[in-house]
Protein backbone atom coordinates (compact mmCIF):
# COMPACT_ATOMS: atom_id res chain seq x y z
CA UNK A 1 0.00 0.00 0.00
CA UNK A 2 1.35 3.41 -0.87
CA UNK A 3 1.48 6.21 1.65
CA UNK A 4 -0.18 9.60 1.42
CA UNK A 5 0.54 12.83 3.21
CA UNK A 6 -2.10 15.29 4.40
CA UNK A 7 -2.62 18.12 6.85
CA UNK A 8 -4.60 17.45 10.01
CA UNK A 9 -5.30 20.32 12.40
CA UNK A 10 -2.18 22.11 11.21
CA UNK A 11 0.16 19.10 11.36
CA UNK A 12 1.47 16.98 8.50
CA UNK A 13 0.36 13.35 8.81
CA UNK A 14 1.32 10.27 6.82
CA UNK A 15 -1.01 7.29 6.46
CA UNK A 16 -1.55 4.45 4.07
CA UNK A 17 -3.61 5.53 1.10
CA UNK A 18 -7.24 4.62 0.74
CA UNK A 19 -8.20 5.60 4.30
CA UNK A 20 -11.63 7.10 4.89
CA UNK A 21 -12.52 9.96 7.22
CA UNK A 22 -14.41 7.47 9.40
CA UNK A 23 -11.24 5.38 9.79
CA UNK A 24 -9.26 8.50 10.67
CA UNK A 25 -11.82 9.46 13.34
CA UNK A 26 -11.66 5.95 14.72
CA UNK A 27 -7.83 6.06 14.88
CA UNK A 28 -8.13 9.31 16.85
CA UNK A 29 -10.61 7.66 19.26
CA UNK A 30 -13.27 10.21 18.38
CA UNK A 31 -16.00 7.81 17.36
CA UNK A 32 -18.10 8.16 20.54
CA UNK A 33 -17.52 11.92 20.82
CA UNK A 34 -19.14 14.86 19.11
CA UNK A 35 -16.92 16.28 16.40
CA UNK A 36 -17.10 17.80 12.94
CA UNK A 37 -14.77 17.36 9.96
CA UNK A 38 -13.88 19.85 7.28
CA UNK A 39 -11.77 18.76 4.29
CA UNK A 40 -10.32 21.30 1.86
CA UNK A 41 -12.62 23.98 3.21
CA UNK A 42 -15.82 21.96 2.96
CA UNK A 43 -17.72 20.41 5.81
CA UNK A 44 -18.13 16.67 5.28
CA UNK A 45 -21.37 15.50 6.92
CA UNK A 46 -21.18 12.52 9.29
CA UNK A 47 -23.21 10.43 6.84
CA UNK A 48 -20.36 10.71 4.32
CA UNK A 49 -17.39 10.01 6.61
CA UNK A 50 -17.26 6.30 5.75
CA UNK A 51 -17.42 6.86 2.01
CA UNK A 52 -15.07 9.86 1.80
CA UNK A 53 -11.43 8.95 1.22
CA UNK A 54 -8.59 11.19 2.30
CA UNK A 55 -6.87 12.75 -0.68
CA UNK A 56 -3.17 13.47 -1.08
CA UNK A 57 -2.32 16.91 0.37
CA UNK A 58 -5.84 17.29 1.80
CA UNK A 59 -6.25 19.95 4.47
CA UNK A 60 -8.40 18.42 7.20
CA UNK A 61 -9.72 20.14 10.29
CA UNK A 62 -11.45 18.19 13.05
CA UNK A 63 -13.14 20.27 15.75
CA UNK A 64 -15.03 19.67 18.97
CA UNK A 65 -16.63 21.72 21.73
CA UNK A 66 -14.47 23.14 24.53
CA UNK A 67 -15.09 25.50 27.42
CA UNK A 68 -15.86 29.06 26.33
CA UNK A 69 -18.01 32.05 27.13
Amino acid sequence: MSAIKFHLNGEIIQKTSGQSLAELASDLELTKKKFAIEMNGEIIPKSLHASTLIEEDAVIEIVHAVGGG
Partner: protein
Amino acid sequence: MSEVLQIGSRSFSSRLLVGTGKYKDLEETRDAIIASGAEIVTVAIRRTNIGQNADEPNLLEFISPDKWTILPNTAGCFNAEDAIRTCMLARELLDGHNLVKLEVLGEQKTLYPNMTHTISAAKTLIEDGFEVMVYCSDDPIFCKELDDMGCVSVMPLASPIGSGLGVVNPHTISIILENSSKPIIVDAGVGTASDAAIAMELGCEGVLMNTAIAKAKDPILMAEAMKDAVISGRKAFLAGRMQKTEYGNASSPTEGLIE
Protein backbone atom coordinates in the same frame (compact mmCIF):
# COMPACT_ATOMS: atom_id res chain seq x y z
CA MET B 1 -44.03 33.82 38.77
CA SER B 2 -43.97 31.61 35.69
CA GLU B 3 -42.57 33.82 32.99
CA VAL B 4 -41.03 32.44 29.85
CA LEU B 5 -37.96 33.75 28.04
CA GLN B 6 -38.64 33.24 24.35
CA ILE B 7 -35.56 33.07 22.13
CA GLY B 8 -36.46 32.33 18.52
CA SER B 9 -38.26 28.99 18.42
CA ARG B 10 -37.16 27.99 21.93
CA SER B 11 -38.49 28.96 25.36
CA PHE B 12 -36.73 28.96 28.71
CA SER B 13 -37.52 29.62 32.36
CA SER B 14 -34.01 30.67 33.46
CA ARG B 15 -32.78 34.12 32.46
CA LEU B 16 -29.17 33.41 33.34
CA LEU B 17 -26.98 32.14 30.51
CA VAL B 18 -23.53 30.87 31.38
CA GLY B 19 -20.23 30.07 29.72
CA THR B 20 -18.03 27.04 30.29
CA GLY B 21 -14.56 28.62 30.02
CA LYS B 22 -11.87 29.23 32.64
CA TYR B 23 -12.98 26.63 35.20
CA LYS B 24 -10.48 24.51 37.14
CA ASP B 25 -11.78 21.32 35.53
CA LEU B 26 -14.86 19.85 33.90
CA GLU B 27 -16.35 18.68 37.23
CA GLU B 28 -16.28 22.25 38.54
CA THR B 29 -17.75 23.49 35.23
CA ARG B 30 -20.67 21.09 35.53
CA ASP B 31 -21.27 21.79 39.25
CA ALA B 32 -21.27 25.57 38.71
CA ILE B 33 -23.68 25.28 35.79
CA ILE B 34 -26.05 23.13 37.83
CA ALA B 35 -25.85 25.66 40.71
CA SER B 36 -26.58 28.55 38.33
CA GLY B 37 -29.82 26.97 37.14
CA ALA B 38 -28.91 28.08 33.60
CA GLU B 39 -30.54 26.26 30.69
CA ILE B 40 -28.46 27.84 27.92
CA VAL B 41 -24.74 27.10 28.07
CA THR B 42 -22.12 28.53 25.73
CA VAL B 43 -19.21 26.51 24.33
CA ALA B 44 -16.31 27.31 22.00
CA ILE B 45 -15.33 25.32 18.90
CA ARG B 46 -11.67 24.31 18.64
CA ARG B 47 -9.41 21.74 17.01
CA THR B 48 -9.46 18.30 18.63
CA ASN B 49 -6.32 16.71 20.00
CA ILE B 50 -4.72 14.48 17.42
CA GLY B 51 -3.06 11.62 19.22
CA GLN B 52 -1.93 13.48 22.31
CA ASN B 53 -4.39 13.10 25.23
CA ALA B 54 -6.79 11.10 23.09
CA ASP B 55 -8.67 9.93 26.17
CA GLU B 56 -9.05 13.45 27.58
CA PRO B 57 -12.62 13.94 28.80
CA ASN B 58 -14.87 15.88 26.49
CA LEU B 59 -16.90 18.90 27.64
CA LEU B 60 -20.13 17.55 26.14
CA GLU B 61 -19.78 14.39 28.24
CA PHE B 62 -20.19 16.64 31.30
CA ILE B 63 -22.63 19.14 29.80
CA SER B 64 -24.96 16.95 27.82
CA PRO B 65 -26.82 18.50 24.87
CA ASP B 66 -29.77 16.37 26.04
CA LYS B 67 -29.99 18.35 29.29
CA TRP B 68 -28.85 21.82 28.30
CA THR B 69 -29.31 24.01 25.24
CA ILE B 70 -25.79 24.29 23.89
CA LEU B 71 -24.92 27.70 22.47
CA PRO B 72 -21.75 27.43 20.35
CA ASN B 73 -19.89 30.72 20.11
CA THR B 74 -17.52 32.17 17.54
CA ALA B 75 -15.07 33.51 20.11
CA GLY B 76 -11.63 34.13 18.69
CA CYS B 77 -12.97 35.06 15.24
CA PHE B 78 -11.89 38.46 13.93
CA ASN B 79 -13.75 38.42 10.62
CA ALA B 80 -17.15 37.40 9.27
CA GLU B 81 -15.78 34.51 7.21
CA ASP B 82 -14.19 32.73 10.18
CA ALA B 83 -17.30 33.28 12.29
CA ILE B 84 -19.59 31.80 9.62
CA ARG B 85 -17.27 28.81 9.16
CA THR B 86 -17.26 28.20 12.93
CA CYS B 87 -21.08 28.30 13.09
CA MET B 88 -21.34 25.82 10.25
CA LEU B 89 -18.90 23.43 11.94
CA ALA B 90 -20.85 23.82 15.18
CA ARG B 91 -24.11 22.94 13.43
CA GLU B 92 -22.54 19.80 11.96
CA LEU B 93 -20.98 18.90 15.32
CA LEU B 94 -24.30 19.29 17.14
CA ASP B 95 -26.35 17.32 14.61
CA GLY B 96 -28.09 20.25 12.94
CA HIS B 97 -28.61 22.43 16.04
CA ASN B 98 -29.04 25.93 14.60
CA LEU B 99 -28.81 28.26 17.64
CA VAL B 100 -25.48 30.12 17.76
CA LYS B 101 -23.82 32.99 19.57
CA LEU B 102 -22.18 35.20 16.97
CA GLU B 103 -19.26 37.30 18.10
CA VAL B 104 -16.76 38.87 15.76
CA LEU B 105 -14.02 40.63 17.66
CA GLY B 106 -12.41 43.87 16.60
CA GLU B 107 -9.16 43.73 18.53
CA GLN B 108 -7.38 41.63 21.11
CA LYS B 109 -6.90 44.34 23.74
CA THR B 110 -10.47 45.45 24.42
CA LEU B 111 -12.26 42.51 22.76
CA TYR B 112 -14.79 45.03 21.48
CA PRO B 113 -16.80 43.65 18.56
CA ASN B 114 -16.16 44.52 14.92
CA MET B 115 -19.70 45.59 14.08
CA THR B 116 -19.26 45.74 10.30
CA HIS B 117 -18.23 42.09 10.22
CA THR B 118 -20.79 41.16 12.88
CA ILE B 119 -23.65 42.54 10.77
CA SER B 120 -22.34 40.93 7.59
CA ALA B 121 -21.97 37.50 9.30
CA ALA B 122 -25.41 37.78 10.94
CA LYS B 123 -27.03 38.38 7.55
CA THR B 124 -25.40 35.31 5.96
CA LEU B 125 -26.17 33.08 8.95
CA ILE B 126 -29.84 34.13 9.15
CA GLU B 127 -30.25 33.46 5.41
CA ASP B 128 -28.74 30.01 5.98
CA GLY B 129 -31.34 29.16 8.65
CA PHE B 130 -29.39 29.87 11.82
CA GLU B 131 -31.02 31.41 14.87
CA VAL B 132 -28.48 34.06 15.79
CA MET B 133 -27.89 35.48 19.25
CA VAL B 134 -25.48 38.30 18.64
CA TYR B 135 -22.81 39.83 20.87
CA CYS B 136 -22.50 43.50 19.98
CA SER B 137 -21.48 46.93 21.16
CA ASP B 138 -23.93 48.84 23.37
CA ASP B 139 -24.83 51.10 20.48
CA PRO B 140 -28.59 51.65 20.05
CA ILE B 141 -28.34 52.03 16.25
CA PHE B 142 -26.40 48.79 15.70
CA CYS B 143 -28.64 46.94 18.15
CA LYS B 144 -31.76 48.09 16.29
CA GLU B 145 -30.25 47.04 12.97
CA LEU B 146 -29.48 43.53 14.28
CA ASP B 147 -32.98 43.31 15.75
CA ASP B 148 -34.55 44.35 12.42
CA MET B 149 -32.40 41.86 10.48
CA GLY B 150 -33.91 38.99 12.43
CA CYS B 151 -31.38 38.07 15.10
CA VAL B 152 -33.30 36.12 17.77
CA SER B 153 -31.56 37.95 20.60
CA VAL B 154 -29.41 41.06 20.67
CA MET B 155 -26.66 40.93 23.30
CA PRO B 156 -24.88 44.22 23.97
CA LEU B 157 -21.85 44.19 26.21
CA ALA B 158 -22.15 45.65 29.71
CA SER B 159 -18.38 46.31 29.59
CA PRO B 160 -15.44 44.50 27.96
CA ILE B 161 -15.40 40.67 27.99
CA GLY B 162 -13.84 39.35 31.18
CA SER B 163 -13.41 42.82 32.70
CA GLY B 164 -15.88 42.51 35.57
CA LEU B 165 -16.60 46.25 35.36
CA GLY B 166 -20.38 45.78 35.40
CA VAL B 167 -22.93 47.83 33.44
CA VAL B 168 -20.82 50.90 32.64
CA ASN B 169 -23.44 52.63 30.54
CA PRO B 170 -26.95 51.93 31.84
CA HIS B 171 -28.35 54.84 29.81
CA THR B 172 -27.50 53.31 26.45
CA ILE B 173 -28.82 49.93 27.63
CA SER B 174 -32.11 51.70 28.47
CA ILE B 175 -32.30 53.25 24.99
CA ILE B 176 -31.53 49.86 23.40
CA LEU B 177 -34.37 48.35 25.44
CA GLU B 178 -36.81 51.04 24.31
CA ASN B 179 -36.14 50.22 20.65
CA SER B 180 -36.08 46.42 20.88
CA SER B 181 -38.54 43.83 19.66
CA LYS B 182 -36.32 40.83 20.56
CA PRO B 183 -34.90 39.83 23.94
CA ILE B 184 -31.98 42.04 24.96
CA ILE B 185 -29.47 40.01 26.95
CA VAL B 186 -26.48 41.73 28.51
CA ASP B 187 -23.42 39.74 27.49
CA ALA B 188 -19.97 40.34 28.96
CA GLY B 189 -18.60 42.52 31.72
CA VAL B 190 -20.70 41.42 34.67
CA GLY B 191 -18.47 41.07 37.74
CA THR B 192 -20.70 40.33 40.68
CA ALA B 193 -24.31 39.74 41.67
CA SER B 194 -25.32 43.41 41.87
CA ASP B 195 -24.15 43.95 38.26
CA ALA B 196 -26.49 41.18 37.09
CA ALA B 197 -29.33 42.62 39.17
CA ILE B 198 -28.77 46.10 37.68
CA ALA B 199 -28.97 44.71 34.13
CA MET B 200 -32.21 42.92 34.96
CA GLU B 201 -33.68 45.94 36.77
CA LEU B 202 -33.08 48.00 33.63
CA GLY B 203 -35.39 45.57 31.84
CA CYS B 204 -32.97 43.22 30.10
CA GLU B 205 -34.48 39.83 29.39
CA GLY B 206 -31.40 37.98 30.58
CA VAL B 207 -27.69 38.07 31.42
CA LEU B 208 -24.89 35.99 29.91
CA MET B 209 -21.70 35.57 31.92
CA ASN B 210 -18.68 33.34 32.31
CA THR B 211 -15.69 34.83 34.11
CA ALA B 212 -17.71 36.31 36.99
CA ILE B 213 -18.62 32.79 38.06
CA ALA B 214 -15.56 30.83 36.91
CA LYS B 215 -13.04 33.21 38.48
CA ALA B 216 -14.85 33.77 41.77
CA LYS B 217 -13.02 32.28 44.77
CA ASP B 218 -15.95 29.89 45.15
CA PRO B 219 -17.50 29.46 41.70
CA ILE B 220 -20.35 27.25 42.92
CA LEU B 221 -21.46 29.80 45.53
CA MET B 222 -21.14 32.64 42.99
CA ALA B 223 -23.25 30.65 40.53
CA GLU B 224 -25.99 30.48 43.18
CA ALA B 225 -25.58 34.22 43.87
CA MET B 226 -25.96 35.02 40.17
CA LYS B 227 -29.04 32.85 39.88
CA ASP B 228 -30.64 34.73 42.80
CA ALA B 229 -29.51 38.13 41.48
CA VAL B 230 -31.05 37.57 38.06
CA ILE B 231 -34.32 36.40 39.62
CA SER B 232 -34.35 39.35 42.07
CA GLY B 233 -33.50 41.88 39.38
CA ARG B 234 -36.26 40.56 37.14
CA LYS B 235 -38.81 40.68 39.96
CA ALA B 236 -37.78 44.25 40.83
CA PHE B 237 -38.15 45.28 37.19
CA LEU B 238 -41.63 43.75 36.97
CA ALA B 239 -42.62 45.22 40.35
CA GLY B 240 -41.59 48.73 39.22
CA ARG B 241 -39.32 50.68 41.52
CA MET B 242 -40.42 53.68 43.61
CA GLN B 243 -39.65 57.21 42.47
CA LYS B 244 -36.38 58.65 43.72
CA THR B 245 -36.62 61.90 45.70
CA GLU B 246 -33.93 64.29 46.69
CA TYR B 247 -34.97 64.67 50.32
CA GLY B 248 -36.18 62.44 53.14
CA ASN B 249 -39.73 61.18 53.18
CA ALA B 250 -40.83 59.66 56.51
CA SER B 251 -42.17 56.11 56.41
CA SER B 252 -43.94 56.42 59.80
CA PRO B 253 -47.02 58.62 60.35
CA THR B 254 -46.24 62.23 61.16
CA GLU B 255 -49.52 62.51 63.15
CA GLY B 256 -50.24 61.07 66.58
CA LEU B 257 -46.79 61.64 67.94
CA ILE B 258 -46.50 61.49 71.74
CA GLU B 259 -46.16 64.99 73.18
